[in-house]
């Protein structure tokens, strides 16, 4: 269940009264204003809206990459807005899987090595890491490309490696910032099928920012943002 009225109690992600203000010269830019949001475990939520509406800022706040000017964010019982920088970094490693528009793979490392990066922060043995990476690459259908470097992969394949990297440590939720924004239709569909599968088959919680209406149709719920405010616009019920 996704709500934007701040009245849910047991949701996985709880956003309460979040403001984000940037200062440009002497002017205050209010990017997010009094935002409330509740997302349950297993939800696949799409955020749509014009450029500058605050979608990516919201994603950054949910992922602990930035802090709100006001308000609180709680994920699985942890209030991330009160965490220190070091604690937040450790929390991110454990709970968040990022999927970026530009894939952001390390070009001098193979697909296997890129996917392994989050696991280097764990106490897993080399054999355990290998097993996890192979499983993740198998899920995204790239077992046969694990020793290829990013420049030997197509854009769609690179994004699938990016998704494998995001899921390999089994995070609490996935944050996808325009995951199909740099792909052709066919590759975009492959990536969306994969996200769909992760949601339905593996019960992953996914929050996705997109400009693509077709991508948004894959989500359980689509929320529209405008001028830093979430607008009730669910495709299917469940939103208060």
């Amino acid at each position, binding site marked *: 269940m996704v709500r934007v009225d701040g009245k849910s109690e047991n949701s996985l992600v709880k956003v309460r009264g979040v403001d984000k203000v940037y200062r440009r010269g002497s002017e205050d830019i209010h990017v997010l204003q009094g935002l409330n949001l509740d997302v349950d475990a297993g939800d696949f939520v799409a955020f749509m809206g014009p450029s500058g509406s605050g979608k990516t800022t919201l994603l*950054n706040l949910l*992922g602990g*990459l*930035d802090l709100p000017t006001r308000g609180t964010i709680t994920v699985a019982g942890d209030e991330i807005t009160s965490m220190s*920088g*070091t604690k937040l*970094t*450790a929390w*991110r*490693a*454990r709970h968040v899987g*990022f999927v*970026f528009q*530009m894939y*952001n793979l*390390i*070009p*001098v*490392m193979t697909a296997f*090595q890129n996917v392994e*990066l*989050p696991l*280097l*922060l764990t106490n897993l043995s*080399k054999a355990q890491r290998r097993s996890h990476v192979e499983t993740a690459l198998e899920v995204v259908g790239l077992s046969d490309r694990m020793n290829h470097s990013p420049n030997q992969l197509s854009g769609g394949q690179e994004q699938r490696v990016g998704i494998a*990297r995001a899921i390999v440590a089994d995070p609490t939720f996935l944050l996808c910032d325009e995951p199909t924004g740099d792909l052709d239709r066919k590759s975009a569909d492959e990536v969306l099928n994969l996200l769909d599968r992760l949601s339905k088959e593996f019960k992953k919680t996914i929050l996705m920012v997109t400009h693509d209406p077709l991508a948004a149709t894959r989500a359980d719920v689509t929320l529209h943002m405008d001028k830093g405010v979430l607008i009730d616009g669910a495709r299917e019920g469940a939103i208060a």
Partner: protein
Amino acid sequence: MKYSRILLANLFRKKIRTTLTIGSFAVALLLFGVLAAVRVAFSQGANSAGVDRLVVRNKTSIIQPLPLSYKNDILRLAGVKEVTYLNWFGGVYQDEKNFFPQMAIDVPTYRKVVPDVGVTDAEWKAFEDDRQAAIVGRSIADHYHFKVGDHIPIKGVIFQGAWEFNIAAIAKGDNAAGDILPFIFHEDYLEEKRTYGKGTVGWYVVRVENPDNSGKISQAIDAQFSNSPFETKSDTEKEFAASWGKQLGNIKLIIMTIGAVVFVTLLLVTGNTMATSIRERVRELAVLKALGYSDRFVLWLVLSEGLTIAVLGGILGLLLAIVVIPGMSKALAGLLPPLILLPSDTALGLAFALGAGVLSTLLPATSAMRLRVVDALRRV
């Protein structure tokens, strides 16, 4: 160890750039090694100088002579044990480029003042018995292939004319003295053939009974000859040897200046390289942070890259120096004492490389550490 893959991947991202940066460190450390060996060579004379010996020279300049009559005046002073004297000869062997130091010595007194010549009693006796005999240091003998019994022609530059010597011995002491000993021969032979300056000497070497009184005796000698046409300046032999080095300029200052310039240049080159490298992968570092890598890890990663380059370049440069210096030493035999790269200088060089690595990488590493993920990901 599990993070070494990230380090290596970044190091070999631009192979040519990494190789050139390692190369710049190697060249700097090669230069450092050679300069350190030259510095050691210049200080060898000072290091082998006797603590109980004073050198008395003309106050105006070392090239101005002193009267031979001063010998007995000095000998009469309290605390003086023995006095000998030398004259700089300044000749060339066969060709102008074959220069090496030659000195005429007062044979009867020399060994009483300077016992560590590096020859046996029998060799010294053979030297004493032949008026045209000469003793030559090992490095000069090796360079010019002189052997005992050779008849050597030397062309006089200061004392014009053709001079002939018989090699009576090759000095090879168990300390550096044998190596750095120049070409010494009889003062009597010089006195007999010289056409000017008869009855004068280049400088005196005085052996004192108690080294603790060296200062007082120096003052007494200089006081004795003050206000005379040939005023003296007396120093310990160590100071005198060091002042010889200064005749060629302040070697230490030159070395320090070159070293400092190389160091600063190296800092700029490496700092710029690392800064460029960081700029090129701001997004990648931001992604690492987004994945959960800490600010401290990013600092460590960038510092490690700089340190790896510095250590590899430093070791390479010092190994090159170890290979090159013996060849240089051979080529410069006779002009300079043997060139030796001391273990302490090798360690200093490595520390220098490490310091340069840390200093040059600190700024880019700090800026990488402070990088805000959201800002970096926004950059194209």
